[in-house]
């Protein structure tokens, strides 16, 4: 037996063995997780882990995911921690279950444990089949014991699935028919649509409910405060009825222009709550010191899920059931309980897949809408689907950010000091973290307002995420100006502050390298002692054919960006090649990734590829446009994203490290790719763009007035 381990927090919070695994279904091991499938392939990776530890073929693992009735309470599926925390918890539990089975078999067979092994769920004695298996032994196992975390884990070298590419379970259904929460059907299910104010600061002054009530198929029209909705027998009836209701509504006036100029000025002049971190000491240096200073910015970005948020709820005999694509079934249950004054023990929240969410989109809010309406029509299932414009206008957005950096390099090309300031709204405002945080709850007659939230300088907090450069620095100071009163709703978008911070840090590193006259790859290696970081950068340089003597200002160039997400997750280095002669086009991205033991290598590569393309889209195209009253871009024409013809060629090299813990990859590529693209554009044009997105217009104006 190995040394007692410090348990991952999922296991500390849910210590009981049967919270993780159960053998009550003959021939199958059911494993439980609160982590949910968001298109990242997590359920397949968890099944791989369980199959190896239980020595079962993967087809005999049934993963029960995101269900408050069965799952351990692991809070949110977020922060690229599902494999690191949820996976390692499940792994320890399954390994322990296997060892307990062997102990039970040893007692039954009166044989020494050393003579026993497991294959396909059957117990082998001296390598030969006994008549015992997991399901026969299960009644003898105390499943109510706490997982000790001391079981011997399967060595990835002996594993069947760990570290081997495994096809995702969830894909076949998605190319054949229904697969999403949107596609659920229950007998007598009603379809609902919700009427939302034209902008966040407008209030309903008058509405004629009968305008909708007269329409075909309308079962219920309901209003409370600024919230109004229709429930109908058929879906298109609801679409039409809500139009009629909208036409009958009057609202208070709101034409405040939240922002007219650039985000940088807007953010840096707002009221802030400050915190800071400082490490090391400044020391005097002989010789010429190069000093630079620059400020970068990123606009608000929409989650822009391809499918608008959807949920189904049913209220029956005081009990509420909710089907949702929320990232956190347990926190949502708590938030719903508070918002609806229902005992949380009378609420079950069950995950069903949605379109990719990339963070806190409308999933929880639409679940609240559905729950609220289900309580108006007890016993009937109510399906609420947001319309496209609801998703754009009402889902939280990723906060705009500004990052100012000052740094110095010694005559030997070594970094001497670094100080930065960050301005940002909050990023982590999911339901039940700081308050209820559900849209409809804030709109009801007796509203539960959104709490005023600011963040602290803390490396796991949102805005400061990845603000520390990964480089060796004698002195470093970071100040966070957290902006609690933004007049729009911001929350978690993939990477939180990591995208803007890595974009800024890695752009600035290139600026320092240029000032010192050192090649950007060489400059990074000169200032980086973490061997895994170095190897990742070297790999990206190698596979991209990095050319140290490449000329500048020719319109085409390559750039590099590197980060270790959250300073604890996967290492990613990316080299982007751009053509910036017209509109910037990313032709190719070469990317190296060290994610420790990659449980499902192809799954990791898939996540990285997706991160690369999404990051290019954010970096070149996206910004949530504001007009009078709030978010103006409410459809795909006003909020374009990267398209097929703009997609680059991609090569990903995975540095597989079977002996090291798995590291999260879901958010690891966004920052490095943004920086690689920005650095490539700077080299292609010999002109630095510090404000995202890097549009043609921005380039033209920067070339005219370089700052």
């Amino acid at each position, binding site marked *: 037996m190995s040394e007692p381990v410090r348990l991952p927090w999922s296991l500390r919070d849910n210590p009981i063995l049967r919270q993780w695994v159960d053998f009550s279904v003959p021939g199958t091991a059911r494993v439980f997780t609160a982590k949910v499938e968001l298109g990242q392939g997590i359920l397949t990776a968890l099944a791989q882990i369980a199959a190896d530890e239980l020595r079962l073929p993967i087809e005999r693992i049934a993963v029960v995911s995101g269900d408050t009735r069965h799952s351990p309470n692991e809070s949110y599926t977020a922060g690229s921690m599902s494999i690191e925390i949820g996976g390692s918890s499940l792994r320890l539990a399954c390994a322990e279950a296997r060892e307990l089975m062997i102990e039970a078999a040893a007692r039954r067979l009166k044989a020494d444990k050393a003579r026993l092994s497991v294959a396909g769920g059957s117990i082998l004695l001296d390598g030969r089949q006994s008549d015992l298996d997991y399901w026969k032994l299960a009644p003898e196992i105390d499943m109510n014991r706490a997982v000790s975390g001391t079981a011997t884990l399967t060595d990835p070298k002996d594993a069947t699935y760990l570290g081997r590419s495994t096809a*995702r379970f969830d894909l076949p259904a*998605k190319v054949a028919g229904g697969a999403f929460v949107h596609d659920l059907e229950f007998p007598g299910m009603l379809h609902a649509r919700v009427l939302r104010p034209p902008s966040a600061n407008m209030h309903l002054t008058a509405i004629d409910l009968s305008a909708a009530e007269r329409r075909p198929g309308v079962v219920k029209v309901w209003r409370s405060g600024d919230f109004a909705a229709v429930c109908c027998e058929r*879906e298109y009836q609801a679409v039409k009825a809500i139009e009629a209701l909208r036409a009958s509504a009057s609202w208070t006036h709101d034409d405040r222009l939240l922002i007219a100029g650039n985000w940088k000025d807007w953010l840096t002049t707002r009221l802030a709550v400050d915190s800071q971190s400082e490490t090391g000491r400044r020391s005097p240096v002989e010789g010429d010191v190069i000093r630079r200073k620059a400020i970068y910015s990123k606009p608000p970005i929409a989650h822009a*899920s*391809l499918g*608008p948020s959807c949920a189904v709820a049913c209220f029956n005999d005081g009990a509420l059931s909710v089907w949702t694509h929320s990232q956190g079934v347990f926190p949502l249950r708590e938030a719903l309980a508070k918002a609806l004054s229902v005992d949380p023990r009378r609420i079950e929240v069950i995950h069903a897949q949605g379109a990719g969410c990339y963070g806190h989109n409308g999933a929880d809010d639409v679940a609240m809408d559905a729950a609220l309406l289900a309580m108006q029509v007890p016993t009937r299932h109510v399906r609420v689907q947001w319309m496209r414009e609801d998703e754009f206008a009402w889902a939280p957005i990723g906060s705009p950010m500004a990052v100012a950096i000052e740094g110095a390099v010694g005559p030997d090309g070594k970094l001497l000091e670094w100080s930065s300031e960050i301005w940002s709204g909050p990023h982590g405002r999911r339901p039940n973290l700081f308050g209820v945080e559900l849209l409809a709850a804030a709109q009801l007659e007796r509203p539960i307002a959104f709490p005023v939230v600011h963040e602290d300088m803390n490396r796991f907090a949102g805005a400061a995420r990845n603000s520390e450069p990964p480089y060796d620095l004698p002195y470093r100071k970071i100040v966070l100006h957290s902006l609690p009163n933004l007049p729009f709703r911001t929350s978690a978008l993939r990477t939180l502050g990591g995208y803007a911070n890595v974009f800024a840090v890695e752009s600035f590193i290139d600026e320092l390298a240029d000032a010192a006259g050192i090649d950007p790859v060489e400059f990074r290696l000169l200032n980086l002692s973490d061997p895994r970081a170095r190897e990742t950068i070297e790999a990206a340089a190698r596979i991209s054919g990095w050319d140290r003597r490449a000329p500048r200002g020719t319109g085409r160039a390559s750039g590099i960006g590197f980060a270790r997400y959250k300073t604890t997750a996967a290492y990613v280095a990316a080299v982007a090649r751009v053509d910036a002669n017209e509109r910037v086009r990313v032709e190719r991205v070469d990317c190296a990734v060290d994610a420790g033991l990659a449980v499902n290598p192809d799954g990791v590569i*898939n996540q990285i590829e*997706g991160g690369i393309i999404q990051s290019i889209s954010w970096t070149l195209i996206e910004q949530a446009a504001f007009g009078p009253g709030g978010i103006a871009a409410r459809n795909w024409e006003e909020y374009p994203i990267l398209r*097929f013809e703009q997609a680059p060629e991609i090569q990903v090299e995975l540095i597989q490290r079977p002996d090291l813990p798995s590291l999260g990859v879901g958010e690891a590529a966004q920052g490095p790719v943004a920086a690689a693209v920005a650095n490539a554009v700077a080299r292609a044009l010999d002109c630095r763009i510090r404000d995202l997105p890097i549009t043609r217009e921005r380039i033209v104006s920067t070339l005219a007035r370089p700052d």
Partner: protein
Amino acid sequence: MSSTFQLLVNGQSHRVTVDYDDTPLLYVLRDDLRLKGVRFGCGAGQCGACTVLIDGRAERSCELPVWSVEGRPITTIEGLATAGRMHPLQRAIIDGQAGQCGFCLSGIIMKAAELIERDHQPSREKLAAALDENLCRCGAHARILNAIERAWKEDSAGGGK
């Protein structure tokens, strides 16, 4: 004000009744015929998630009033498989693990199916151009192009359908 139409979907004839004459085909397919592979993405012809084949041409079912397709053969993703065997494009997407959330995939497959019928050897550029109006938010583009391209090559290398 309800009207009744005769639809020919995936080789089968259906009588459907709608309350509004402008009811888009999407709602009829999803809610009346329970063909949930037809996905609502925007309802405005901007994303391609709802793409189906009408007379072999890729069309956006969120924008087509149901009356306009009466009697014309309609194929949804559910009707692509033949005799229980997946269409080569469905197979290709799975073999290439070409998707993340998968919400975009049925629309993309239907759009690609239109192209593959007309042009057996389209270049990657043509394929990308054909799919350019189909959005994918997860960034699965490169994988999708690779997977479909590979399927085509294998198909034309003698595999047939």
